């Protein structure tokens, strides 16, 4: 009688180990497949554009002995853009995945709760020359942090269910959008044109500095997010269970939130508000992964793929003119979001 609990416990642990091994295996396969898809999309993005580079030419350039023109287009024009797009998508998807998990709500992503818009408003303030000379990444981070603090602060504690939090975010997003409009309407037409990418999300207005800051942020944030993963998984359990496992839900949420703000702010500084990627990528990653997991890596890969494909589409559809990538993701993503929202018996709370 006294040995039974110990046996069960041992047994359960063994099952769990087996179980977790299974997860690892599936996650590994999914991630490998996604990585392969990302490589494929990246190659397509490098090959196609206003100019089409044949596969042989692309291969020679990648191997280091291509012709001058191909080399220039691939390495100087498309590669930096591909990098910026991929990093932005990965960062937004990671941020979305973290926030969804810690708010226990599938809709709680940076775009929906207004963080994007706030970060954009701050970045625009430094672009249109309101006398603020802080670099856009720093400004965008400040905006993202303020918006998140407001959304959480105004909707109660971090632990509350998503409702108030999301509506608060909606309001903050609307205010930020209005402020961006005011700033754009009170500057010169030419400057307003320069700031236009910021209002729709584009990879054209990026600076090298902001891409480097994003790369550094991801290099720091991704391992940290992985380190948080186990704790995040337990957040999905009822709170007493989480606490009994020796995890402080408050601290985990705070850490996840800080990471999420960091990644969103840095991504917005590169490309402006591209909100739906943060919602769609984790969503897709979840359907590929086993239920109950927090598919950080799969979400990041999916986010990168989405951005790369959307950017390619934006460059091709109206060539030689370009559709900003934010418009492409919004057009492609919002029907999917509507479907999530209106699907029968769907539960937005995880």
């Amino acid at each position, binding site marked *: 009688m006294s040995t039974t609990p110990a046996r069960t416990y041992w047994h359960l642990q063994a099952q769990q180990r087996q179980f977790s091994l299974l997860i690892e295996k599936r996650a590994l396969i999914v991630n490998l497949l996604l990585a392969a898809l990302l490589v494929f999309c990246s190659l397509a993005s490098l090959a196609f554009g206003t100019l089409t580079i044949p596969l042989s030419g692309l291969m020679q350039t990648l191997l280091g002995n291509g012709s001058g023109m191909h080399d220039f287009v691939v390495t100087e024009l498309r590669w930096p853009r591909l990098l910026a797009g991929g990093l932005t998508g990965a960062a937004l998807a990671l941020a979305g995945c973290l926030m969804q998990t810690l708010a226990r709500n599938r809709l709680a992503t940076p775009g929906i709760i207004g963080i994007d818009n706030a970060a954009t408003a701050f970045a625009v303030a430094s672009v249109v020359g309101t006398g603020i000379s802080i670099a856009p990444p720093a400004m965008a981070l400040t905006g993202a942090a303020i918006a998140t603090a407001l959304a959480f602060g105004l909707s109660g504690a971090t632990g509350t269910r998503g409702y108030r939090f999301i509506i608060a975010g909606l309001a903050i997003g609307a205010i930020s959008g209005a402020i961006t409009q005011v700033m754009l309407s009170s500057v010169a037409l030419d400057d307003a044109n320069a700031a236009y990418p910021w209002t729709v999300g584009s990879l054209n207005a990026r600076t090298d500095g902001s891409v480097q800051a994003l790369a550094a942020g991801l290099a720091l944030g991704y391992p940290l997010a992985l380190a948080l993963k186990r704790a995040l998984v337990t957040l999905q359990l009822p709170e007493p269970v989480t606490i009994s496992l020796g995890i402080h839900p408050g601290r985990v949420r705070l850490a996840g939130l800080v990471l999420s703000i960091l990644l969103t702010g840095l991504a917005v500084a590169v490309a402006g508000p591209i909100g739906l990627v943060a919602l769609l990528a984790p969503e897709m990653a979840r359907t590929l992964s086993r239920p109950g997991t927090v598919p950080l890596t799969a979400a990041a890969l999916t986010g990168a793929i989405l951005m790369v494909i959307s950017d390619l589409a934006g460059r091709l559809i109206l060539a030689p003119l370009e*559709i900003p990538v934010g418009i492409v993701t919004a057009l492609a993503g919002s029907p999917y979001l509507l479907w999530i929202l209106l699907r029968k018996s769907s539960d937005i709370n995880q």
Partner: protein
Amino acid sequence: MKSTPYYWPAWILLGLVGLTSLLFGAGTLELRQAFAVLAGQGTEEARFIVLELRLPRLAIGLVTGLALGVAGALLQTLTRNPLAEPGLLGVSAGSAFAVSLAILAGASTATLTTLVSQAGALAGCGLVILATRIQGVGQDPVRLVLAGATLSALLMSLTSLIMLIDQRAADEIRFWITGSIAGKNWEQLTTTLPTLVISGFIVIAVAKPLASLALGERVARGLGHRPGLVQLGVVIAVALLTGSATALAGPLMFVGLVVPFVARALGGADIRKTLWLCLPLGPAMIIAADTLSRLLVAPSEMPLGVITALLGAPVLLVIIRTRRIPTL
């Protein structure tokens, strides 16, 4: 049903706001001169500014505010959702998208008919009602609002795409989409009057059944009302009102949210009291916002939509702070 202590003060408030809007503007016109015009005197230029520029704006603000306030109150009662607002739910965006399409097809905002805008609003309204019919969405206010916000985002990106493809259209749409009631004249106001009168009659007809519908469909049936017909009437009224307002002022967010919210806070949950209070409060909000839009960046003007968003979004925050959302 007007028996709330706030009813007449609300009209007095509207009167004061209206007077202020006649007296202050972006121009260099002196206050004394504006007063002189109201007393039936004043220079020719002062008379022009007060009577031909500010007075039509006042009238259009009156109509727009009335339409949006009433449309918001109706939609909220129908969906039993205090967040259901024509702007948030995508009705205004539907209207704006239809107008953008019309501009792309060659129409100019100056000669635009109200009809296009109302057709767009009707389509948006229909989508909202369809969405509430889906199991689970009608009961979940946040999901409905998010679906509306998503629909708005979708339509707005389509509008952005139009602006990208056709630069001439972009120029016209850009000025219109931020919302403004400047530069409109009596003519444009009169084109919307017939539909406003029609929706007025619908509102009078559905107000009572709608109040009993708020108690549940079974109660409404028991009282001899036909819920389906009432709902249809409300949808048409909301579409006509929002369409007219959007045609006059561009897509304005939050007016339909703030006005009924304040009205309910003052007069209680009964839809008839709310509607009576919306009559003075809606115009008061628009006219106050318009006056602010003239004063803040004189000698230019600020888009009206920006001001209503800045005034309205904090109210949304207040609502979620003070209320449990899913009840109405």
